């Protein structure tokens, strides 16, 4: 426990230092943030699809929930002085942390609610439900009724209540939500990368991780051995959704504008490609492949030039998925981990 706290403090300090050192390079900071968000998404989805053996294709939707809830939170909080007298950086990061927490918890709660009915059933219900969920989020945001301020007054909401009601009903619909406070530093992103990897590893090394793996291997047998399979699946799904929400909130706070389309089915598929390419079930595979695949279009652009990164991403990922399925269906790492490389060989057979 003490070790955990000190590890987190050291990681946090290192990330803060890196953020400060590289603050001058905007391009670097942006790329590092994008890569980090992708890693958080991939590692958390891997907890569901790789480790527990379920199939979710709605991670983008949970990311979206985190993004919008996070932005509503931060734009509310920036109206108030949380820490009078504290330096701007400190109060900004505090606001961001609270936004990440609300975004993450909202997404985690959604994950729990979506997971509970669909994970009870065996089969592909989760895929169908998560697919639907992502679409519902998108459509809901696109169609929020923008209640005018004077109408709000009619319902007698005042002060922070009125402010909240206003923010919640003004999500920018399809055109997007702008004027987001730019609070995310890439150090904060990578701190969360560290957290999600550590949490995943700790879970895996515990009875919970073994239960999740057992569910992946044989659900009937796991149930027969006293594993509450539904409970474990729902908890894993909620934890993964929480991190998707955090990733979304982090993402939103370094974007000038967020739109519902950024969290649609294409985004969800992209995250699935990350973990399939990295090797379902391998955390390090998810990390490496999310990094590589996020940077790849950027690298190709600088090499060959002349095209939009967003335009080539879709065909490139589609092609990649086909190639992986044909040549290495278990993905880059299979189920192996970087940190286990030396271990297996040492043990006598």
């Amino acid at each position, binding site marked *: *426990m003490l*070790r*955990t706290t000190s590890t987190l403090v050291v990681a946090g300090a290192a990330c803060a230092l890196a953020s400060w050192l590289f603050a001058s390079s905007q391009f670097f900071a942006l790329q590092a943030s994008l890569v980090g968000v992708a890693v958080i998404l991939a590692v958390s989805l891997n907890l569901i699809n790789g480790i527990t053996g379920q199939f979710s294709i709605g991670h983008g939707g949970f990311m979206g929930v985190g993004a919008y809830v996070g932005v509503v939170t931060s734009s509310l909080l920036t109206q108030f002085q949380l820490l009078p007298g504290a330096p701007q950086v400190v109060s900004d990061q505090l606001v961001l942390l609270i936004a990440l927490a609300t975004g993450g918890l909202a997404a985690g709660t959604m994950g729990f609610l979506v997971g509970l009915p669909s994970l009870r059933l065996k089969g592909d219900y989760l895929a169908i439900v998560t697919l639907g969920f992502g679409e519902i989020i998108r459509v809901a945001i696109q169609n929020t009724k923008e209640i005018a301020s004077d109408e709000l007054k009619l319902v007698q909401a005042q002060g922070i209540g009125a402010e909240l009601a206003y923010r919640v009903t003004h999500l920018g619909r399809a055109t997007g939500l702008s004027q987001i406070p730019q609070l995310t530093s890439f150090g904060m992103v990578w701190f969360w990368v560290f957290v999600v990897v*550590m*949490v995943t590893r*700790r*879970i895996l*090394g*515990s*009875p*919970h*991780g*073994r*239960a999740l*793996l*057992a569910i992946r*291997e*044989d659900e*009937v*047998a*796991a*149930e*027969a*051995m*006293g*594993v*509450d*399979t*539904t*409970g474990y699946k729902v*908890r894993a799904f909620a*934890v993964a959704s929480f991190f998707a929400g955090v990733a979304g909130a982090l993402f939103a706070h370094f974007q000038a504008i967020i739109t519902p389309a950024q969290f649609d089915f294409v985004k969800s598929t992209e995250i699935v490609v990350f973990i399939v390419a990295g090797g379902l079930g391998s955390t390090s595979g998810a990390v490496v492949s999310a990094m590589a695949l996020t940077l790849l279009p950027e690298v190709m652009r600088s090499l060959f030039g002349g095209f939009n990164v967003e335009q080539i991403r879709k065909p490139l990922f589609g092609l990649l998925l086909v190639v992986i399925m044909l040549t290495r269906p278990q993905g880059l790492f299979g*189920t192996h981990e970087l940190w286990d490389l030396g271990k297996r060989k040492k*043990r006598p*057979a």
Partner: protein
Amino acid sequence: MSDAQLEVKQATMRFGGLKALSEFSLTVKRGDLLGLIGPNGAGKTTAFNVLTGVYAPTTGDVLVSGTRVNGRRPHEINRLGLARTFQNIRLFKELTALDNVKVAVLANTRPLFSRELMGRLRRGTGAQRAGAKVLGALDNYRDWWRAILGTGGFHQEEADVTARAGQLLEVMGLSARADELAKNLPYGDQRRLEIARALGTNPQVLLLDEPAAGMNTREKADLMVLIRALRDKFSLGILLIEHDMKLVMGICERITVLDHGETIAVGTPAEVRANPKVIEAYLGEAAHA
């Protein structure tokens, strides 16, 4: 409460028009070693599935440690003290032998609420059972936190679980295989690992579905000796499905014979052997083969 750990009363299981199990009754007490035999398709595995909650019986009752468990989920029934192995081996293939057992030992980590309290609630009325679920969930969330934070208590429990799983592997003669993936084990070892895993849940009654299937004569004989030893060591009640008549007759104290879902005979090996219905059922099978 009677000393019956498992009690089945007139359980019937229908699949559409097929009566796979018909008015099946059975009592297993601590220290019993009972046999369940019958030709292929007689309904033996179906009986296990009904007892362990894979299926809820169409009619009739199943009681585990005095609690009626009809319609309860298999993991709940397991927690009440009933464990099983599978005829078509269902190990966690990509996990090591040790981890296979550790998954099962999970149930024995120190709970937030006393085992007596949880047991009483789980046996209780609907509201009490719902309460048990909420308390269980609280316990579980606390456990996730302890694992993530890596508390001292957590490390101690992990060490205990590993030690317990190691002991069970040793009992089943699998210590040398602890770090091998289950899928890479020889067939006989996989069968024994199934038993080690079931023992990990700390059962009062153990159901073994053809644990010797696919083994040679020598291995089978050894396994029967081992099964008897397990019964004594853990004071288990054991219900054994086995096709090899000689083996079952040699080891079981009482035998139930199924045919087409019907219980056609119950008794000591000698009584069963002499029963004309049993002879007919088995001769019939031989004639078809």
